[in-house]
C-alpha cells in the first residue's frame, strides 16, 4: 500500500444506539480498495456498546486486510465513551481531521 492509495471515508452521525445497529452495520463495510480508512465520527455524540462492538469488528477486518484506520472524534462526551471502551488501544483516535489524514498518509499500517 502506498501513501497514494485512495482514502475511504466512512461518516456516521447522530446518536448511535441499538436502534441504529442495522444502519451502522450497513455503513461499516470495507470497500474493495486497499487504501486507508477514515471513520469520521465528528458528528457522533453517543454510541452504545453495540456500536463499540461493531467498530471493533470492523477494525479487526481492516487489520486483517492490512488497511490503516483512524477515528475522527468531535464530541468530548463521545471521546470519553471511547476511553471507557479502551478504544485508544485499538484505534488511532484524532480530534483534528488534518492530523488524522497526515497519520493515514504516513505509510503502511
Amino acid at each position, binding site marked *: 500500500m502506498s501513501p497514494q492509495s485512495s482514502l475511504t471515508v466512512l461518516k456516521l452521525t447522530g446518536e448511535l444506539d*441499538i436502534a441504529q445497529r442495522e444502519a451502522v452495520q450497513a455503513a461499516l463495510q470495507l470497500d474493495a480498495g486497499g487504501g486507508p480508512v477514515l471513520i469520521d465520527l465528528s458528528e457522533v455524540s453517543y454510541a452504545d*456498546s*453495540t456500536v*463499540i*462492538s461493531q467498530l*471493533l469488528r470492523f477494525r479487526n477486518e481492516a487489520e486483517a486486510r492490512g488497511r490503516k484506520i483512524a477515528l475522527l472524534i468531535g464530541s*468530548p*462526551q463521545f471521546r470519553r465513551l471511547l476511553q471507557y471502551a*479502551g478504544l485508544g488501544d*485499538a484505534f488511532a483516535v484524532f480530534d483534528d481531521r488534518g492530523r488524522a489524514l497526515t497519520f493515514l498518509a504516513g505509510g503502511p499500517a
Partner: protein
Amino acid sequence: MRVGMSRYEMSRTSARPLAVTALLLIVVVPILIGGGALVRQLVDRGFGAELRVHQAQLDLGSVLNAQLDEETGVRGYAATGNRLFLAPYQHGRDDFAGSMAAVERDAAALQLDDRTAIADMRATNQRWQRLVAEPLLRNARDGDVIQLHGKALIDRFRLDADRVDTMIAARQALQDASTRAAIDRINLLVLVAVVAVSLAALGFGIVQTRTVQRLEAEERLAGELRVAYETERRVAETLQDAFLQRPLPTTASVSFSATYVPASEEAKVGGDWYDGVELSRGRVMFVIGDVAGHGLEAAVAMNRTRQALVQAAVLDADPASLLSRVNAELMRDRSRMVTAVCGYADSQNYVFTYATAGHPPPVLVEPGRAPRLLEFGGLPLAVMDSAVYRSHSVQTLPGAMLVLYTDGAVEHSRDVFEGEQRLLEAVASVCGGDPVEHVAAAIHARIFDGRAVGDDVAILTVSFAAPGDMRTGDRDASRIVAEGTRGGSASIGGTIVSLYDRVRRRRPPGVSEPRRIAS
C-alpha cells in the same frame, strides 16, 4: 447495555372479505340494473313493433277488401244493369280511401324503405276508377274491352299489394330476429349475474377461509413466541438470580455492599453482574462486569465469564494477567463482548489492585477526601486476541471505599460527564451516613432519585474497615507492608481449598460442580 426485543405485531384483516364483497356488489349491482333497463327497452320495442306489423297486415287486408267490393259492384252492375250492385261499389270506395291512408301511416311507422308499391296501388286504383269504373257505370260501349283493361289494372294492383305484404312480412322477420337477440341478451345478462354472484360468494368464502387460517396461524405463532420468550426469560432470570443472590462475603476487615436494578421499561434480564470472593484471610477478590445484550444468551455469557474470572483469580494474583487469561478463553468461545473491572482488596496493607477492560473507571473514596475517578483503560473482553491489560495499584487508608458500577450508572443522560459528576456527588453524599451494607443502594437512589431507569445498573462497593469498625484487633492499621501482589502466593494452596468449598457450597441449581483446579 440492552438489546430490545422485536415485537411481533399481529395484523387483524377481518375487514378485507367485507371490502371484497362490497367491491363485487358495487360492480355487479349497476350491471344488473343497467342490463334490466336495457332488456326492458328491447322488449318494449319488440312488442310495439309486433303490434305495428299486425296492424299493417290488417289495414292492407282492408284495402284489398275495399278494392274487391268496388270491383264486384262495378262488374255486377255492368253484367246485370242492376243498380243494387252500386251499394257494394260505393261502400268499397268509402272504405278504400281510409284504409289506404292507414296503410301509408303503417308503412311510415314501420319505416318501410320502398313505398313506391303503395303509391302505385293508389295510382292504379285511381286509373281504374277513371278508365274502368266510371265508363262502365255510365254504360259506355265496348264494355268487354274496358273490362279486359280493368282486369289488367286489378292484376297490377294486386301485384303491388303482394309486394307491400312481402315487405311487411320481411319487417316482421327482422323484428322477430331482434326480439330473439333481445332474449339472447336477457339470457346472457342472467348468466353474467349468476356468474358474478357466484364469484362474489366464492371470493368471500376464500378470503374468509384464508383470514381465519392466518389468524389461527398468527395466534399459534404468538403463543409459541410467548412460550419461548417466557421460557427464555425464566431461565435467564433463574440464572441471574442464582448469581446475583450469591452472598457477598463478610469479613472483619473488608465489607461489600451491592445493588442491582434492572431496566424499568422491559422485563428483560441484563448482562450486569458483580462478585466478591474471600480468597484468604484479609484478602478478597472483587469483580463487576457487563455482557453486551440481554436475555438468555447474555445470561449464559455472563455465567461463563464469571466462572472463568473466579477460577482464574485462584491461579493469578495479578488482575491484568487474570483479564488476559479470561480474554483468551472468551475469544476461543467466540463470546459476546464483555466489559469488566476485577481486582483484589488487601486489607493487611489497605491496597486495592485492579484492572479494567472496556469499563468505566472505579471511584475511590478516602476518609476526608472527595471521591475521585481512578485510572482505567484496556479493551473490552472477547473483542481482540492481542488486547493488553494493565494492573493498577492504589495505596489507600483504613475506611477507604472503592465504588464499582456498570455503565448505566453514568450513561443515563447522554452527557457522560454530567453522569460522572452525578455519580461522584452521590458517592460523596452517602459517605459515612449510611450503614456500610446499604451504601450501594443509597448511591443508586441518589443518582436516580426515583426516575425511571433506562438501563440495568449494578453498583458494588468494597470498603476497608475504619479503625473504629474493627471487630478484630489483629491488624495494625498504620502498618504498611510493601508486599508485592505475588507475595500472597504462599497462601494460594489454602485459598484454592477455601474457594473450592465456597463455590461448591453456593453452587446455584443447574450449574455444574466446579472442578478442583489444582491439587
